[in-house]
């Protein structure tokens, strides 16, 4: 809805980007532990020169296999010929192989897919023609539905994207 309003108000040019990458995702605390290393498929929608929405999904392997799904919005800041950084906020959920933790005063496990809110920064983006390379992206946040409190991390080692106009 917000995005639609922005689009309507600004009629900004759109850029669609599809990418693949490798990253680490983790959410862990007193009640859940999940995450690991794995590949990603990402879609990004650029709105104008600065606004960027992304959706990313990928398996994570360390404990039991888990699927991480991220959805976020960021602000892109160009700082040189072809170079830019993007920072914003995203939600990250873990589906599948989540290790639950219980204790004597908390015998009922947290159910459902744990999810977290994270702030992220992609500090190094380089665009050359239709191609985009990102590396060393970092996301840090907290679990939303974990009463014990949990730390959520994402490290996007690299991502290669292909941009098409809209």
């Amino acid at each position, binding site marked *: 809805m917000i995005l639609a309003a922005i689009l309507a108000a600004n009629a900004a040019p759109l850029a669609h980007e599809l990418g693949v990458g490798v990253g680490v995702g*983790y959410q*862990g*605390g*007193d009640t859940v*532990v*999940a*995450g*690991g290393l794995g590949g990603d498929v990402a879609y990004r929608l650029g709105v104008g020169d600065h606004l960027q929405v992304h959706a990313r999904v990928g398996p994570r*392997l*360390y*404990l*039991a*296999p*888990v699927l991480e799904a991220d959805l976020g919005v960021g602000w892109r800041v160009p700082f040189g010929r072809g170079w830019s950084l993007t920072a914003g906020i995203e939600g990250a959920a873990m589906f*599948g*192989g*989540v*290790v*639950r*933790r*219980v*204790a*004597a*005063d*908390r*015998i*009922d*496990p947290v*159910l*459902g897919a744990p999810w977290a809110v994270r702030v992220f920064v992609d500090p190094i983006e380089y665009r050359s023609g239709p191609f985009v390379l990102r590396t060393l992206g970092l996301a840090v946040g907290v679990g939303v539905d974990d009463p014990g409190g949990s730390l959520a991390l994402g490290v996007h080692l690299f991502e290669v994207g292909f941009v098409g106009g809209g």
Partner: protein
Amino acid sequence: MLVLFLACVTPEAPLTDEAIGAAVDVAAGVDSDRLLTSIGIMVAAHATEEPVIVEPWGLPHRHLAGTERLVDLYAELGLAAEVEETDEDGWLAKNVIVELPGTSAPDEVVLLTAHHDVWFTGADDNSSGVAVLLEAARLFSATEHARTIRIVSFDHEEVGLLGSLRYYRDHADDDHVAVVNMDAVSFALHDPGTQSAPTGFTLPDVADFAVALSNAPAERPARMAAQLAGELPHPLKVQVALGADDNLYPGTGDFHRSDHSAAWTAGIPGVFFSDTTNFRSPYYHTEDDRIGTIDPAFGRSVAEEVIALVYALASETQPVGEQP
């Protein structure tokens, strides 16, 4: 609406007050002096045996004297232990088995396991677990339980889970409804900064708790463990991890480092108790793993917990994942 949904899927407490009371009554019989004495006897027995240096670890391994002494200790309790031998690939393994038949579901077996082979003379790892087996045998032999309780001490855990892998292979047709395994259950420290954890896991800073790890089919037994821990005569601090799939933690080896791994691989619901060994103990797999490092009060609480859990599992007759 979301709150309503969550309320609908929140699982029930796994044990009734009556079941907790019955299990705790049995656990109240744990005698900490007997536990410590049993550890001492096993350590002394191991010390009489000339060790074999086993590569690639390069550590002195012992098992035969402990096997014989364990059979004697069961006999002193009036229990006939069966020694199940397998000799394969140059490794003679002697698993020691005591069976306490169930009353109404004798074909359904609840396993209580530990290993009796050691590096050096192994007080915590794992004479402490063997001592709990003995105490459990003493207490369970004086009780009635619906299911059969089979108490198994595995050989050659330290050299690759050989005894347990052979046991689960050779007993594949038995109806194992659940297994509770112990490995190193009597070492604790009480100062901040004494506990570390595997990568990705957080644990309390003070090394005075036990961990209980389960595979997915053992979620309810693991929650039973959490429920019982606070009700024991000497409550136990326990960190319980519920498995994410049938064969928990394939991506890291830390949680497969004892005989429960062979049970999990066989698809049997299993809960593993440990003091976390090298994540807290400086004596792990050294000659200093001696009787003087044992924490008797902590060991007693673990014994109460394990015995209460096994008794609760053996007193039921519905599938372990279902509420009675």
